[in-house]
């Protein structure tokens, strides 16, 4: 349970932090701190066993029928990352409280931060790799929110989009890699995958799988050539950079390398791909970092370089290299987080991060300077600081690996060069910022920040020193257990000491320190050289060009298919549907006519069908005379309802009949505001083309219908018919399906209906259109708008119609009828009052506000469904029973009746809402029927 809680708590906390921020600025920070501490508290009881080498796996059934579990895993590696994520997270939360200005939204910052934390914990603690991938993608999404936190800045938006595009593309590759990996290993559980390394490496699909997985890891860890998103992500607030680019986001990639180390490493492919990429990144990052004038830019490229270092170590692949890799993950997280925070303090207090302007700060902010210098020395790999230890292990691993390589001396030489560059840029960070003359043109006088803003930096710097001086007493147990988690085996013999004798690694460190100093001394000519060649190797330019191509292609494809013309799009749509249907038809070579026995044709049916066809074709031919076409369409609808009557579908016939009435009234009302004639615009050629396509589509539909109708089939109808009375308490199977078996679908459908009604209401709001003054023949409206006979008759008919609809509603469960039909009948009855008596008369007697009716209907249907929960049944389980009423006799009452009543109310409400509002617009725009009009 604990592992699930650790991951879940930050997600829940994100919502809480966002909500509580409305009470005051500091509350969100406090809430985030408490949430992080809570997660740490959940981790604490499990840590003892983990230190003893136990791997804790906790499973929760998720979709058991699919074999999917939520599975979490805690071993040394996972614990190390969880501690880094939560520990550094806590410090960043404190730091950000002082960093963010009064204009920044605290709630949004801390909510995104906790979201990210939860996602990252999920990556570190997942047992199932698909689940790991989901959290992996969540980190990409959450980092998008964090990097784009200052949404008003263009570079923040661009940086966030770039990070999302690159890491998202990597995530896609990783999905493919994980699918392959899961298929190769036969399981998506890490326990199985880590234990079947030999089988995985021997599999023919090993290489493609490896490439895909590495693409995911390299994009996330900003490895060359995917490194460019990281410097652009520096547009984020500095706490975000301190968190994402020291301990978490970019470490997810190297975490993956470490996690899958036993399963994937140990092949030449692994060594060359991982080692080669790591080496290239190490050198490139170190080189680029030296020339950045922006403090955060320097740190960004330094981060890229250090990630390359860790990748290279995992690429070397020996157990000792893995020890060094994990050790450097810890050290880099500690010193880089503190350096980012220090850079943020400098930016905050000096108003600039440009090292050409920020000089000589030693006098202004001595405490910050001291802390930064320790952290930078650690980054450079100076003895007595933690960076030195892992860097020396790295040097000695590089020497060890070089013995079995052609041109082996190149590797130690290259890593020493990287060491030289690292010393040079660290020196630059210290000397340029804190010494090197006086500040140049700063917007404010710098001074040390508030104590609590410096505290997180101080904590990390103390850690740098403790680990650097007393490694065996401080970091050794954690390192050992984390390496056990990586190797899935006890760690190799290693010695965390400052002094190892005069080894090659020591000499490399000496060369790096001395060479770094030298490079820094001759920096001026180097900068001049770099300024002349700048931009040659800018990967961002390639990315932008690639993106430009993608957009150009998308625009061209859109232009081709969507020229802003509905006609063209519909034409293409029907054409493609036809082509697909035809290809399926021609490909299958099945006979058109099946073997089912056919029903004999009778004369009346043939006549009705011919009448329908004539009316439809007539409406199409005369469609330019809109009124005529509409009347013909209405007659087609009536014949359609006759078809339903003929073929044993009384419910459908009733529905179609009432819908037809409402539709025709609706279209007549709408036609009042539209031109009465359609001008002839299309050329003969175009009409011929459309006719051809329409006939082909019609022929296709007819052929398809014929093919289906003449084939025997198996239906699930038997179940519904057999269970309708015993299970649903109703004899009308169609109605029982609607309100009982598939009640959930019906609930969705009436919701759609309600939404359509409300959407139309919103659309008609304040809409005004000129009405029609004269009809097609040039005649004006009659002054007698509400003929007395019609008005009296409809008033008389109203109670009768309502009685019929009540009857239809009540009997619907056993006889044709039900909520839909009854609702439509009621709506028609009420609309009749509007038609014959006018809006004013009707409004004085009936409210036009249909929203409560719709709401009540939806609520009733929903509550009927929820009520079954009270009795311990699934949603919308219906209950029914027989009741005896004196005089009236036996009654059957089903809970489905209440549901049907909800359907009825929604149908009445939505239909009336639509028609009344259109009708009111109609009434408002009617020209005054005065004497002049008639004359």
């Amino acid at each position, binding site marked *: 349970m604990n592992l699930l809680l650790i991951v879940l708590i930050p997600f829940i906390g994100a919502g809480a932090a966002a909500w509580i921020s409305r009470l005051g600025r500091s509350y969100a920070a406090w809430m985030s701190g408490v949430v992080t501490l809570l997660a740490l508290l959940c981790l604490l009881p499990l840590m003892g066993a983990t230190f003893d080498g136990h791997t804790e796996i906790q499973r929760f059934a998720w979709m058991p029928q699919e074999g999917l579990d939520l599975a979490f895993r805690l071993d040394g590696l996972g614990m190390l990352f969880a501690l880094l994520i939560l520990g550094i997270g806590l410090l960043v939360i404190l730091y950000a409280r002082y960093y963010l200005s009064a204009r920044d939204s605290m709630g949004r910052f801390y909510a995104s931060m906790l979201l990210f934390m939860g996602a990252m914990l999920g990556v570190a603690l997942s047992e199932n790799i698909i689940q790991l991938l989901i959290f992996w993608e969540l980190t990409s999404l959450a980092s998008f929110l964090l990097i784009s936190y200052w949404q008003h800045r263009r570079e923040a938006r661009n940086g966030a989009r770039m990070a999302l595009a690159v890491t998202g593309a990597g995530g896609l590759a990783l999905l493919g890699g994980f699918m392959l990996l899961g298929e190769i290993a036969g399981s998506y559980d890490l326990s199985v995958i880590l234990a079947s390394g030999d089988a995985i490496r021997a599999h023919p699909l090993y290489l493609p799988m490896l490439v895909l997985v590495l693409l995911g890891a390299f994009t996330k860890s900003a490895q060359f050539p995917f490194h460019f998103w990281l410097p652009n992500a520096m547009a984020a607030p500095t706490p975000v950079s301190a968190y994402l680019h020291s301990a978490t986001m970019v470490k997810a990639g190297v975490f993956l390398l470490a996690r899958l180390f036993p399963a994937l490493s140990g092949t030449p492919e692994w060594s060359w791909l991982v080692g080669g990429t790591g080496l290239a990144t190490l050198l490139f990052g170190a080189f680029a970092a030296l020339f950045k004038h922006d403090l955060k830019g320097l740190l960004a490229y330094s981060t890229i370089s250090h990630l390359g270092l860790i990748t290279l170590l995992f690429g070397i692949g020996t157990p000792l290299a893995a020890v060094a890799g994990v050790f450097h993950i810890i050290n880099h997280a500690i010193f880089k987080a503190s350096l980012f925070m220090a850079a943020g303090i400098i930016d905050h207090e000096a108003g600039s991060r440009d090292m050409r302007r920020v000089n000589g700060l030693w006098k202004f902010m001595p405490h910050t300077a001291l802390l930064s210098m320790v952290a930078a020395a650690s980054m450079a790999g100076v003895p007595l600081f933690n960076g030195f230890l892992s860097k020396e292990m790295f040097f000695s691993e590089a020497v060890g690996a070089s013995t079995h390589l052609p041109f082996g001396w190149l590797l130690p030489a290259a890593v020493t060069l990287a060491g030289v560059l690292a010393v040079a840029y660290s020196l630059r960070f210290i000397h340029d910022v804190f010494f090197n003359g006086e500040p140049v043109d700063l917007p404010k006088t710098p001074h040390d920040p508030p104590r609590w803003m410096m505290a997180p930096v101080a904590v990390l710097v103390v850690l740098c020193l403790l680990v650097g001086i007393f490694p065996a007493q401080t970091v050794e147990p954690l390192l050992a257990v984390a390496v056990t988690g990586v190797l899935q085996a006890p760690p190799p013999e290693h010695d965390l000491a400052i002094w190892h004798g005069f080894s090659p690694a020591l000499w490399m460190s000496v060369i790096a320190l001395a060479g770094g100093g030298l490079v820094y001394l001759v920096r001026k000519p180097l900068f001049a050289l770099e300024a002349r060649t700048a931009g040659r190797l800018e990967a961002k330019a390639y990315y932008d060009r690639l993106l430009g191509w993608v957009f150009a292609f998308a625009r061209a494809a859109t232009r081709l298919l969507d020229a802003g013309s509905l006609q063209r799009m519909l034409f293409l749509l029907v054409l493609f549907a036809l082509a697909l249907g035809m290809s399926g038809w021609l490909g299958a070579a099945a006979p058109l006519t099946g073997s089912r026995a056919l*029903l004999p044709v009778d004369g009346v049916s043939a006549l009705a069908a011919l009448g329908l066809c004539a009316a439809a074709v007539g409406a199409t031919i005369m469609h330019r005379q809109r009124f005529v076409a509409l009347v013909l369409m209405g007659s087609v609808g009536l014949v359609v309802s006759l078809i339903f009557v003929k073929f044993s579908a009384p419910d459908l016939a009733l529905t179609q009949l009432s819908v037809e009435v409402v539709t025709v009234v609706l279209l007549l009302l709408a036609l009042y505001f*539209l031109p009465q004639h359609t001008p002839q615009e299309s050329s003969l050629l175009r009409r011929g083309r459309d006719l051809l396509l329409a006939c082909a589509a019609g022929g296709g539909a007819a052929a398809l219908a014929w093919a289906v109708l003449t084939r025997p089939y198996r239906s699930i109808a038997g179940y519904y018919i057999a269970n309708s009375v015993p299970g649903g308490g109703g004899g009308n199977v169609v109605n029982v399906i609607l309100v009982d078996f598939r009640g959930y679908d019906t609930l969705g459908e009436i919701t759609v209906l309600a939404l359509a009604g409300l959407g139309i209401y919103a659309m008609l709001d304040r809409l005004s259109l000129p009405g029609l003054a004269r009809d097609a023949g040039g005649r004006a409206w009659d002054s007698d708008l509400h003929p007395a006979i019609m008005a009296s008759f409809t008033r008389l008919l109203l109670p009768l119609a309502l009685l019929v609809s009540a009857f239809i509603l009540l009997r619907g469960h056993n006889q044709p009828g039900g909520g839909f039909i009854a609702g439509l009948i009621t709506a028609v009855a009420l609309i009749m009052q509007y038609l014959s008596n006018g809006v004013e008369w009707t409004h004085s007697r009936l409210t036009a506000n249909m929203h409560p009716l719709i709401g009540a209907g939806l609520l009733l249907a929903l509550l009927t469904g929820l009520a079954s929960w009270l009795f311990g049944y699934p949603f919308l389980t219906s209950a029914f029973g027989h009741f005896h009423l004196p005089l009236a006799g036996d009654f059957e009452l089903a809970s489905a009746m209440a549901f049907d009543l909800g359907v009825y109310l929604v149908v009445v409400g939505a239909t009336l809402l639509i028609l009344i509002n259109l009708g009111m617009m109609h009434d408002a725009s009617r020209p005054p029927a005065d004497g002049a009009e008639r004359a």
Partner: protein
Amino acid sequence: MEALLALVIGVLTACGVYLALRARTFPVVLGLTFLSYAVNLFLFAMGRLAIGQPPIVASGTADYADPVPQALVLTAIVIGFAMTAFVIMLALKARAELGGDHVDGKH
């Protein structure tokens, strides 16, 4: 009978497609209505045709028409009405805001 129904579905589809391809809103709405008749009938036909066998359970009857497509089509008819209403209101809105009834907003 089956041939008649197939013919009706074909004619309704053809008329619907032709009208939907017109350039003014009102014929397009009529075309969509024809198409929904055709689709509803087609869906209904999935349950094959039966005469005099309504799916109302009664003692002594063994054969019933398939109720499943009927339930499907019943809601489809009502939703189809909502769609027609929505589209025609869009046409009115377009006329008010764009000043014409061309489907692409041209004059």
